[in-house]
């Protein structure tokens, strides 16, 4: 690394100070950091619930907490992690920070709306936190009617309101990204020169804009059913509880892709940078993001195979679920093929990327089990499903989030993280994760239903193994939190491009100046053109 420059250039962190300059900022980079602080808080709240759940499940009798509390724990764990952590995680932090820089723009298209989105997330989160402190909510994150509308005796209304508000945060972010990517690309940056990270976020934004309103209206109906007793899903009035499930999953299945697509975008960047090669099959990887976004909307009924949905609808949805598996497989194969004849180095982000591919492969393959009608009848609503979606959403999305966070950390803060610690924590997360969730596949096939507070004694061994894994995983998650904060102050200075990566974000200082670029860049090369990079470096240096 270069020796510290005597006077640091003024950057987005130092150009103004004070709480007000943060809370009223319109700078996408500062807003990204606000998001990061917020979702980290939500992640640790959600994580605390997870810890309690795992500790409770050490014994089959349910002796740590009562069943009422247990139900609130897994509900709040799900709501916090999904609506307030995973959905905003990569798009609102890394996406927010990087998309304008990657496309050579000074900011997002609507900086004020961007700030508004953050406030909406905070307000939504406060509603949810309020519900939690007031006594919690026990409907499960899925809010199935008629339990949520008529029978549950908990804070459904406040939570529903929180999710409703947070939904609008997500919609506005998506809207902002779409317009930004359409309108504000630097000269020469054609669609097929975009980094795959941007492609993935474009696909994600489309889902957010098309899907989230349906969730909003569904939650609104649940809300009005509790408040005004209008009873749209009430079977006592001839209403259809399965209709709720259709509406809910119309959003909530695509929501999985809101979480995983940006993660795939991150991985594409990492694999390319540390192999020093363009992504193999760029067009296929970009196209598969869009294909996933489109097909992702056509498969929601696979959550309803045993719900009294008609057999014929089940067949259609099962078939389409297999169709959506193909673009995901294409991505995995292309990432692997990118390594071929590369020049591969093993920095921390690359380790996370390898971890991601491994866990996502397992998560994706077990998705084939639950998409198969015959097997899903047996494993749906068991720990098999729990393990499957944790492999995708935790193994996939959070591995990529941590990988991306390490990768762009020098860009965000101007400092390097401690490499040794970071590699160690990447290893711990990978091992802890598998230790936690692999036993749950076996538990699920054995028939252990999910959301069970007490369970038959023969399942205990596997639950204990899972809890042991979870404690390792917890260490793996706390470590980066500690050393990253430490490195912000004490880490070695990074310089503009510590990894010799392509991409416009590496062409400006670290941390970047307020408006990202001193001179707006002009793009003349395809994405991931490393030979062009060496030319420049030699000419400069």
């Amino acid at each position, binding site marked *: 690394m270069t020796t510290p420059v005597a006077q640091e250039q003024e950057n987005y962190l130092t150009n103004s100070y004070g709480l007000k300059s943060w809370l009223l900022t319109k700078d996408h980079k500062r807003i990204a950091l606000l998001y990061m602080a917020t979702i980290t808080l939500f992640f640790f709240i959600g994580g605390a619930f997870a810890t309690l759940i795992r500790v409770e499940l050490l014994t089959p009798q349910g002796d740590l907490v009562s069943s009422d509390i247990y139900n609130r724990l897994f509900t709040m764990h799900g709501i916090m992690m999904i609506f307030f952590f995973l959905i905003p995680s990569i798009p609102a932090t890394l996406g927010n920070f990087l998309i304008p820089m990657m496309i050579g723009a000074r900011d997002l298209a609507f900086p004020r709306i961007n700030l508004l989105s953050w406030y909406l997330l905070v307000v939504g989160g406060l509603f949810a936190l309020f519900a939690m402190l007031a006594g919690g909510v026990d409907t499960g994150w899925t809010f199935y009617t008629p339990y949520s509308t008529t029978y549950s005796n908990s804070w459904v209304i406040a939570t529903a309101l929180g999710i409703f508000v947070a939904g609008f945060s997500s919609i506005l972010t998506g809207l902002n990204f779409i317009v930004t990517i*359409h309108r504000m690309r630097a000269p020469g940056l054609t669609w097929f020169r975009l980094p795959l990270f941007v492609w993935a976020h474009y696909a994600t934004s489309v889902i957010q804009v*098309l899907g989230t309103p*349906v969730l909003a209206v569904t939650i609104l109906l649940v809300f009005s059913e509790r408040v005004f007793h209008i009873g749209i899903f009430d079977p006592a009035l001839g209403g*259809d509880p*399965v*209709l709720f499930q*259709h509406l809910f999953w*119309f959003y909530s299945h695509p929501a999985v892709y809101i979480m995983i697509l940006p993660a795939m975008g991150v991985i594409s960047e990492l694999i390319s940078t540390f192999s020093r090669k363009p992504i193999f099959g760029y067009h296929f990887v970009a196209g598969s993001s869009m294909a996933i976004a489109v097909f992702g*909307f*056509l498969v*929601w*009924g696979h959550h*309803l195979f045993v719900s*009294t*949905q*008609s*057999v*014929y*609808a089940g067949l*259609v*949805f099962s078939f389409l679920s297999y169709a959506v598996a193909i673009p995901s497989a294409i991505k995995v194969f292309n990432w692997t093929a990118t390594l071929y004849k590369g020049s591969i180095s093993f920095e921390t982000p690359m380790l996370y990327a390898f971890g991601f591919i491994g866990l996502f492969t397992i998560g994706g393959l077990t998705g084939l089990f639950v998409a198969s009608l015959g097997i899903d009848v047996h494993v749906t609503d068991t720990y098999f499903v729990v393990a499957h979606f944790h492999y995708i959403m935790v193994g996939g999305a959070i591995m990529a989030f941590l990988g991306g966070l390490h990768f762009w950390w020098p860009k965000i803060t101007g400092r390097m993280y401690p490499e040794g610690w970071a590699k160690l924590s990447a290893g711990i997360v990978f091992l802890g994760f598998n230790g936690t969730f692999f036993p749950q596949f076996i538990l699920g096939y054995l028939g252990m239903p999910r959301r069970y507070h007490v369970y038959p004694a023969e399942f205990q061994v596997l639950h204990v193994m899972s809890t042991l894994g979870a404690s390792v995983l917890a260490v793996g998650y706390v470590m980066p939190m500690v050393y990253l904060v430490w490195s912000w102050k004490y880490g070695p200075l990074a310089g503009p491009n510590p990894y010799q990566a392509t991409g416009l974000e590496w062409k400006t200082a670290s941390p970047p100046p307020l408006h990202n670029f001193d001179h707006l860049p002009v793009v003349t090369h395809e994405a991931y053109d490393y030979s062009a990079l060496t030319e420049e470096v030699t000419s400069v240096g």
Partner: protein
Amino acid sequence: MTQHIDSVKTYAVIWISLLILTGVTTAVAFVDLGPFSVIVALSIAVVKMMLVALFFMHLRHSGKVTQLAMAATVLWLGIMVAFTFADVATRGWMGVPGR
């Protein structure tokens, strides 16, 4: 924003046609057309929507991307309804309750 200014006359013609269509759809509702009642009512509504969107909202003059996006949205809504009906309408085909 493409500046394309229509004449007041165009707007007035559209406005009058919208009012006439409202009258027609109300009147037709009192006539027994069997299953066609719904089709007629919805067709008139679609025509009215197109008039408002194309002329009042200037979709006629908007870029291809906007037009495509709106068409895609309508299609998406169609998917949501069609796939839900793939369930609702085929319930009971097996002759087994709940299948």
